[in-house]
């Protein structure tokens, strides 16, 4: 366990403010499974947005398939709107190397041609390996590379962070 103390709920409040500033007509929220999807779900409700939010799985376009194989999770992408001509705001919990966002963009473009795509994240932990930039990040932290940071949601819907040591 790490000594990092990030208050996920507090950061969510910041995120909500940041996203509110990015809202525009013809915009849809798309959360990346799993943490991003939970955030998008709550943002959709809290911001009172019309239509539905999208959930996106990046697993079919991951670049590490050869090493890690098929992922255990089998959630499918579900987008309750047409992507063509739409402004998309991708939402994710933690932005690190940028590879998940690259895979998410490929998945998104399989559905059509968006007018624009922006990114909002709860935590930007640096360590980028690709040219990916969020329009808004609620927090910027630095963590050892071997630590994996992700969002958890308990039964009451409360957000917390979990940190795991990778081997």
């Amino acid at each position, binding site marked *: 366990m790490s000594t990092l103390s990030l208050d996920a709920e507090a950061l969510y409040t910041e995120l909500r403010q940041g996203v509110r500033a990015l809202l525009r007509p013809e915009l849809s929220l798309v959360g990346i499974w799993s943490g991003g999807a939970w955030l998008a779900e709550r943002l959709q409700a809290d911001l009172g947005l019309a239509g539905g939010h999208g959930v996106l*799985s990046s*697993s*079919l*376009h991951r670049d590490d*398939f*050869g090493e*890690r*194989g*098929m992922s*255990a999770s*089998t*959630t*499918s*992408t579900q987008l309750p709107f047409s992507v063509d001509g739409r402004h998309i705001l991708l939402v994710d919990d933690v932005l690190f190397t940028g590879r998940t966002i690259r895979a998410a963009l*490929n998945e998104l*473009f*399989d*559905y*059509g041609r968006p007018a624009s795509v922006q990114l909002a994240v709860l935590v930007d932990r640096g360590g980028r390996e690709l040219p990916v930039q969020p329009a808004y990040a609620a927090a910027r932290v630095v963590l050892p590379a071997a630590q994996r940071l992700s969002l958890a949601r308990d039964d009451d819907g409360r957000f917390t962070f979990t940190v795991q040591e990778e081997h």
Partner: protein
Amino acid sequence: MLSKRNPQLNKHGELIHLLSIEGLPKAVLTQILDTAGTFLSVNDRDVKKVPLLRGKSVFNLFFENSTRTRTTFEIAAKRLSADVINLDIAKSSTAKGESLVDTIANLSAMHADMFVVRHSESGAPYLIAQHCAPHVHVVNAGDGRHAHPTQGLLDMYTIRHFKKDFSNLTVAIVGDIVHSRVARSDIHALTTLGVPEIRAVGPKTLVPGDLKEMGVRVCHDMAEGIRDADVIIMLRLQNERMSGAMLPSAGEFFKSFGLTDEKLALAKPDAIVMHPGPINRGVEIDSAVADGTHSVILPQVTFGIAVRMAVMSTLAGNEA
């Protein structure tokens, strides 16, 4: 005798070849079915391709002809962005006397990543898996009478799609079970997934008593076999069976064991009717039933592509 590890699984218990449903843990089967669901949605998109097998070569080795099955594997592989090479074995070097093992060695030297094999001898894919290079995956597309695991899986996917819960179903498999690799794979899958009542229905020449050792109830009476069934799987009756002195005629078979609306009325009102195809209208199944509301024969085909995509992508992601 030393007990050998199932050659389909690596030392971590992950699937590296799909040779038979028998011996696979329930979790492995369920994982493939869940993954297939993901691919089903891919097949509905405009862009039906995902890059999971990009740069990989899939060789279809069909020692026994089957344009249908080969085509579905080809579609599945291409939707995963793989390169597909079809080998027409009858005309190729094997017909000139090259041994099976030599054929495999030559193809491996051409950097094959996956072999999809159909062969008339039970066990042939095991021999291939033993002799191909370590990183190559083998998918059994049907070997003799032994197994047709992708058909078994897509049949299970179909049942799960329409019936949801395996634990309270009655499934009847009707027809030439003793010669059927589809029946064997279905039976193993159904027992692994916990289906409580599996019936094997047909005349004694096609459904011998020792089938019960596989965990099925043997029925030689059609009415008894399909009464209150939730799922009826009709098997194709091959012409050779008539000439092999096992059955007098197609007509007589149809009379006793052919599925008509009248017989179907004995099953549950929401029973589904399945068939691995191609169907012999008027031999094992009436046109009215094949085209009727209980029939899920066409969805089986759609599910078949998604299931094969799931199998290939699962294998490609696991190391020997």
